[in-house]
């Protein structure tokens, strides 16, 4: 069994997506979903599914386990730009910074973090190097 690290952030199907929202007044996209646009304070942005691929904007790797984290180290950590004009902070499946390059294509994946007390895989969203 798989359990999401937090409900409402992503879909875990064959083609996963990130669950965002779009402001009907200023057009900005948000992730995660907001009930008020942070850019213009307009309420009730419309729910949208964000593009599952983008390009790499910044990246590093985490080499020591941060507080509250039970998964493997090292792991990749970075920022991916999506075509909607939004930059997403996310785990990366590649943990060697030298193996990544600015602007390279990245694709959304759902990855396992660790097993919970019932033996379920706790999963979250991440980006992996994609096909050019």
């Amino acid at each position, binding site marked *: 069994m798989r359990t999401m690290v937090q409900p409402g952030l992503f879909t875990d199907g064959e083609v996963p997506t990130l669950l965002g929202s779009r402001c009907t007044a200023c057009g900005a996209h948000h992730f995660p979903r907001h009930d008020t646009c942070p850019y213009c304070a307009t309420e009730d942005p419309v729910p949208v599914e964000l593009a599952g691929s983008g390009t790499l904007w*910044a990246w*590093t790797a985490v080499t020591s386990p941060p*507080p509250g984290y039970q998964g493997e180290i090292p792991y990749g*950590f970075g*920022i991916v730009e999506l075509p909607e004009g939004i930059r997403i*902070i996310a785990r990366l499946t590649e943990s060697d910074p030298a193996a990544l390059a600015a602007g390279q294509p990245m694709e959304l994946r759902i990855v396992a*973090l660790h097993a919970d007390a019932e033996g379920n895989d706790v999963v979250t969203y991440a980006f992996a190097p994609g096909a050019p």
Partner: protein
Amino acid sequence: MTGVVIAGVGMHPFGRFEGVTTTDMGVHAVRAALHEAGVARGGFQAAFCGTAYGGVATGHKVLSRLGMTGMPIVDVEAGCASGGAALMLAAGALAAGQYDTVLVFGTEKMPRGIIRSSFFDPWQEEAGLAATPSFFALRAQRLAVTSGVTKDHLAQVVVKNRRHGASNPDAMFQKEITPEEVLASRVICEPLHLFMLCSPNEGAAAVVLRRQADSPGSPPPRSPPHVTLAAAVLRSHLPGSVLSESTPMSGLTDDAVPSPTTLAATAAFEEAGLGPADLDVVECQDTDAARELISYEEIGLCAPGGSAALLASGDTALGGRLPVNPSGGLLSKGEPLGASALGQVVELVRQLRGQCGDRQVDGARVALSHTVGRGANAGVVILTR
């Protein structure tokens, strides 16, 4: 101008002190500042205490120990800028005529290791998205793109600040370091090595503020020159920057969102009627080596993209045109969140009075202190003599 002068400052060194409590350190710093100001019990009408990890009523515990309570005591949490926030509140109350003398202090005992912040939700920690140094690393990597900052530049920031800190008895590290040693320390988050990151630690700092109208026109004989608080400003973030100290989960593909530091610095220069060209000495947030260089650009010490060149010119080292972090910065002192901003103010007051010995910036008349951190919160203080 705020119409407020610094009547006294005091400090408990920054470091690790086994068996010394947050209250003990606060008492030490407050006692020193009150003594210097010649203020006794009943001599101040309000107190503001900056702390992030101190817990409930940190300020009350310090002042109870000193037998000085009854006045309003307000604990202020604004992350790395807690002390700056406390100073802003105190200066505002004095300028409004609410009080004539106010005590401002910060005291902190940080947990060891990577800072755990209640800012993050449990799921963000579980997903590995709450690793504070990784956000610093992403900012450093972007600085390489926008400003040509290399690992050698980052190492040089550490070398400079540790050289300054070697003559600061209040610093945690009082030993110089070579660029080779910095680059040989282990990589925490590429491109940041261990010695490029400051150590969360313990310490306290205190400042007594007084309304200028209530101060004598010229300082009495034997006392150091008057230092005036020209501006004390706190700002938060605007949305949209993915690398903002507000640590959002997303942002816009828009690089023009002003940073909280730029917002605070702009407002502080306006309040003081001064600009970056007027500065003689700066203490800025160097949580990591890249953060100091980002601060150069965000405060306006150089043009955007110019931080590597400013560092390489030697202007920001002691003996240069505009020394930055003569105290050794957080890279030498370590960072006790609630006390770090006031620690900068204590250093700058002593610089303006000419009391800093080997690390003295000769003839300094205008000084700027800067802190920024989670929230986001950015505090900028300008002092003059």
